[in-house]
């Protein structure tokens, strides 16, 4: 191939490199012994001031957080495991709203995963043992996507259900920086 073709191909390859992990389809999910790192509860106040060490994100967060395949699986699980019964399509009902920016128990993916596993005293059921590790993290990834925390190119604009909420690709929300609690 003549020189111009080779140059432009290399340039384009570098530009799109970031695309590949977003599309990675890993339906097996790596087996991780400890589902959720201990102590990842809402860490708003530190006795004697912040301890300086920002909360280390669980290694699984990166694998699930912006992955289109896991978010889509989470979206299907959200409907089939009856989350939609209490939280509707993010607006809430029996359960609190999920598309707003108020997170009683923390808005980071592992905090949401903790809520799903442990349940919460005011009526959130515990799914420990009821869902596999992968499913729980996929649900947590989708819940974050509902409030716009996720990259726009990892979410679908709508589902094949009635049109309920504004397209996920257009929910404006500032991303949550790890270590800093989400409730403004």
């Amino acid at each position, binding site marked *: 191939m*003549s*020189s*111009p073709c080779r140059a*432009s*191909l290399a340039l*384009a*390859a570098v530009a*799109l*490199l970031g*695309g*590949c992990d*977003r*599309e*990675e*389809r890993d339906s097996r999910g790596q087996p991780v012994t400890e589902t959720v790192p201990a102590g990842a509860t809402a860490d708003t106040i530190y006795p004697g001031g912040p301890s300086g060490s920002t909360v280390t994100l669980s290694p699984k967060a990166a694998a699930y957080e912006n992955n*289109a*395949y896991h978010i*889509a699986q989470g*979206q299907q699980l959200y409907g089939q495991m009856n989350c939609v019964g209490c939280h509707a399509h993010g607006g809430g009902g029996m359960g609190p709203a999920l598309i707003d920016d108020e997170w009683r128990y923390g808005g980071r993916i592992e905090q949401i995963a903790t809520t799903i596993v442990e349940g919460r005293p005011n009526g959130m059921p515990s799914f420990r043992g009821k869902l596999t590790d992968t499913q729980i993290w996929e649900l947590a990834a989708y819940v974050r996507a509902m409030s716009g925390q996720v990259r*726009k*190119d*990892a979410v*679908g*604009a*709508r*589902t*094949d*259900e*009635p*049109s309920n909420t*504004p*397209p996920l*690709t*257009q929910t404006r929300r500032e991303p949550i920086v790890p270590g800093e609690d989400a409730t403004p």
Partner: protein
Amino acid sequence: MSAAELARDGPTLHGPELAARLERSWSRDPGLLGWLATVDHKEIGRRYLVTAFVFLALAGVLALAMRVQLARPDQNIIGAARYNEIFTMHGTTMMFLFAVPVMDAVAIYLIPLMLGTRATSFARLNAFSYYVYLAGGMLLWIAFVLNVGPDVGWFAYVPLSGPEYGVGKRADIWAQMVTFTEVAALSVAVVLTATILKQRAPGMSLDRMPLFAWAILVTSLMVIFSMPSVALASGMLLSDRLVGTQFYNPTENGDALLWQHLFWFFGHPEVYIIFLPAVGFVSEITATFCRRPVFAYPVMVMAVVAIGLLAFGLWVHHMFATGLPRVGYSFYTAASMAVAIPTGIQIFCWITTMWLGRPRFDVPFLYVVAFIVTFVIGGLTGVMVASVPLDLQLHDSYFIVAHFHYVLIGGAVFPLLGAITYWYPKVTGRLMSERLGKLSFWLLFGSFQLTFFPMHLSGMLGMPRRVYTYPAGLGLELPNFLSSIGAFIVALAFVLFIANVFLSLRRGAIAGPNPWKAGGLEWATSSPPPPYNFAHVPSVGSATPLWDGPLKWMSGLRVDEKEMLLTTVVSARPDLREPVPEPSIWPFISALALTVMFVSSIFSPWAVLFGLVPLGVALIAWFWPKQLEPTAEPVIE
């Protein structure tokens, strides 16, 4: 300077001195910028051809990968997800990036030569179309390499390609690639239609036009009236996936069948857009190698036009299994059967040409014979699947895979390979090797039957399309194994053909202007033709000018300015002298701006608005007339 002093070709200025001055005003400047700025239809045609064959090779490798996976039952060499990506890329690349563009390539190169004109109309649009096509192909394949390739099949049925089940950016890349290739194909169609209607050599009235030109004219009109359908459909799919419109959402009263209707309204004309240029090739090759024009010229022209019209009336035969009212289906069965009549007529006329003429069994002619033997099988299986009760059993099975490979490879690729062998001397000045040509021909013909005939059987044994494996014990082992073996031999045959092309570049016999003693105008100029094609404007008296007495010419076109002659639409009487656009970098820049806009609009809908600004600037610069003509050209009404 008054009109008289302007340098013009004619009795006072002809021969080598004219050639030198014309060479200077028609050739482009060297280097990368010159390469990108060319508007010479021959250079763009060659680039289209090379790029299309690169994509053919890439898609061919994917076909081999699929055959390896399907050679034995219950294999897991290629995983399910990867296999779906591979068959989607194979189908999409073959249909959008090889079949249509390769026919455009040959047409862009040959039509001006066949019509006796110096360039295509809208030469810059022609250059622009190539770069848009190249960008679309690169988008698809870079995405495939980066694991973002589409995996929803070449016709991406909704809702699988919709926002809920078409996860991530895969289907967006497919839909945007369709937009690229459809912009390119539409541009080429506009260029070719205008060239054929307005730039034929004086005297070449419609009934003296080469049959290939008729085929390309009908193909271009079909592109103009069918491609907008897939543009609209993929645009609606993109907006469903990005901004949440509800076109294909069945619950919000959208419909999954809306996609199928719009896609197949384009889909079926698309396969005839690929087939009709091949009809043109066969007519030209048969005429030259049987030493006489094709039998019943007006009937052949009517057949081509009939196919062009009928193609728009039978798209629903792709949707017989979707539960539409049965009475509607019988109309489409009749229409699908009717399209076999003009094809049958053409086959008869070709064979009659052979009957009346004296066939010379050179490689191009062998490909024509192989075309007839193979394509008629495909056409007849097509008649079978036109019937609803049969199609309900055969639809979406490997029987259909066999059918469309017979009509596409048999019907289009065989004539294409014949055409390349036939016009190779005109493009390169050297003949391809006859011995290597025959070897690759027989190898291809034999291995093609070995590969695709067993697929009729595996389809009737219940093997659906697009399965990445099949269970043992269903009798599918033998046909699949044979197909896999055949596929590798087909690949070998293609490698031999490509080797023949490259070896003959240096070691092929010198061809001269008319090695096959053919009758068309393209054989009236040197091989390879100079940038201006013809020193003087040829004048035509019959359908095969070189066979009917010495060629007469017309003088008077400018020499220091690029100029060509426009003729009237029906009788091709000289009408206007049209300036030919200068080479310009702006078509390339506009294609770049369009690419940036299309690709970034996958990630954010606002890119459509922000992308318009650079595109607008590039387009304005493209159309802005260059320097003022130094001498005010006196206006003669």
